[in-house]
């Protein structure tokens, strides 16, 4: 950034003026960098602004307590979709977290650079880049076709496919960041390898692991494509049956945004605002976990 101005006053020939071509270049480039950084923020800020203006219009408690209305009806809310999104994300977490975390522990602590480890890591990286609609196709074939109906469970499976690689790779990174000395110390004090992993390495890496989990959750919650033909949508409250279709915010936005009825379009804006808010909370939560000073 800007050179220390005291240097100029301190004496000799080190004075600072815009007449100097190098100083001028430095200032110009700094300003350019700041300007472009702000420009990069522009899309996010403009989206947030539009969401607040257009989605904020319908914000009220009844938005969360009422069911989606039919076409041409006034009032109603998006309660079933908010609840549905939370439930699908919960199902996805139950399915993907054990798998992703255990895989990460295997990769970081046991596999090393073995062939299997490299293969799993490579597969995970490929999976993170996979278009989300393919996760939907996978869940459709695995759950919808075999069970014979669209279901909340199928939606959860589709999302868990998206979550597993993110959870696995970030958790592995977090585990690897634990200093080798701590493992040595634990082993040196007579702990077994399993005890070392479970009582020393995992607790140390926990903030990093949680960050990965929250980022994976945030990504999954915003996905529409994998839910379209797995969880479908439901105009009713969730009744505790994982085998029937379920509402979600993402699919609600998809359905209502193209509606000819203005009230439904407004609800889609409100749903977008809520969804972005949910994702933002998860992201900010992840940031806070990273920043929290560790006990070790």
């Amino acid at each position, binding site marked *: 950034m800007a050179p220390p101005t005291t240097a100029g006053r301190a004496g000799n020939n080190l004075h600072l003026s815009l007449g100097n071509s190098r100083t001028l270049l430095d200032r110009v480039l700094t300003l350019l960098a700041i300007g472009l950084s702000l420009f990069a923020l522009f899309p996010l800020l403009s989206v947030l602004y539009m969401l607040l203006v257009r989605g904020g219009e319908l914000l009220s408690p009844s938005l969360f307590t009422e069911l989606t209305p*039919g076409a041409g009806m006034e009032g109603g809310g998006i309660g079933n979709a908010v609840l549905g999104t939370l439930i699908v994300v919960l199902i996805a977490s*139950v399915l993907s977290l054990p798998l992703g975390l255990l895989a990460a522990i295997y990769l970081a602590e046991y596999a090393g650079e073995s062939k299997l480890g490299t293969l799993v890591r490579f597969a995970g990286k490929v999976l993170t880049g996979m278009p989300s609609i393919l996760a939907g196709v996978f869940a459709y074939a695995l759950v919808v076709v075999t069970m*014979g*109906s669209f279901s909340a469970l199928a939606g959860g499976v589709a999302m868990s496919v998206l979550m597993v690689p993110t959870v696995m790779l970030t958790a592995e990174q977090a585990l690897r960041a634990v200093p080798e000395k701590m493992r040595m110390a634990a082993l040196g004090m007579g702990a077994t390898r399993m005890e070392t992993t479970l*009582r020393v390495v995992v607790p140390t890496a926990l903030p990093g692991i949680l960050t990965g989990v929250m980022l994976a959750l945030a990504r999954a919650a915003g996905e529409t494509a994998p839910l379209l033909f797995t969880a*479908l949508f439901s105009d009713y409250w969730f009744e505790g*049956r994982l085998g029937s279709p379920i509402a979600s915010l993402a699919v609600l936005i998809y359905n209502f945004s193209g509606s*000819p009825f203005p009230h439904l379009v407004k609800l889609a804006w409100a749903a977008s605002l809520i969804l972005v808010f949910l994702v933002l909370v998860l992201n900010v939560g992840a940031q806070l976990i990273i920043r929290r000073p560790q006990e070790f």
Partner: protein
Amino acid sequence: MRHLDRSVRTLFALLSLTLMLMAGCKKGAPEGSGAPATGSEATPAKAAEPSTVTLQGSGASFPAPLYSRWFREFSTKNPHIRVNYQATGSGAGIKAFTAGQTDFGASDSAMTDEELKQAHGNVVLLPMTAGHIVLAYNLPDVKVLKLSRDAYAGIFLGEITNWNDPRIASENPGVKLPATAITPVNRSDGSGTTFVFTQHLSAISEKWKKGPGTGKSVNWPAKAAVGGAKNDGVAALVQRTPGAIGYIEYVFAATSNQPTAMLQNKAGKYVAPTPEAAAAALSHVELPADLRAWVTDPEGDDSYPIATYTWLLAKKKYGDKTKADSIKALLKWCLGDGQALSKELHYLPLPANVTEKVQKAAETIE
């Protein structure tokens, strides 16, 4: 350290528990929800009332707003029957219905003989409502636009490329048509609306029939043609492109007050796309026994030329009495009291003689 040990141990206990639960679920699920039947046997869940019946449907997006409204109103009157409908498109709706993933389907193009064969004849096709397709245009100074059969076929064929073309001007005396280039807007996604529109174009133009033909998506011959996703995408493109013209469902033009063209019908008359004119078109088509009828090019002086029925697909035999009774009650209500809602949502109520026929067909469901 010590409290962390414990929390980690609990964490792992929880993890292994969920894993075990998952294994249990996987085993239990197929039997439990294999038949997407009367809620009670779906999953032994806490809140499920044994008497509630859930009917699941998916398919055409064109009637979706009306269906969702119908089913909502019906459920309010009959709280023990829940009907859930999701717009996935006609093709996907037919597939899901044939595969038994849904209790009923919906399609803008009924079902082809091939599709009927795949369903092993266990289908009743029921026209539930009808709608019409309008040509919305963007010419700021033109309030009334008349398009002859040759003109609108020519526009979408790419033969007429300018608004002041004599083939348009000759039918619009006194209207100052600009020299703007025409941008025909079509659907970029597969759509029942495209099917109905191209079916009509094939009926009125040999050239169209031999060229792009009829389909849910076709090769649009006009060089200037652009595609928009779904009805709202086409409507938005027309709204912001001067000189554009596109086909959309009437409801999208009606709720946004977009100007629409008067079209020349088979009798040679120019008809504005009012619901009355579209209803007149339907009245000139006799429904056959299987209730599959396409209004490709209706007769009558007052008929608007592009209109269509839309069908609900129900099973002939459900093999489940409560389910069959529920769907019969639902259909009866939709064809009766429900028809009044059609008009409010810019659909066409079915003529009385048609509802009678459809009711009879619905009665045969077992």
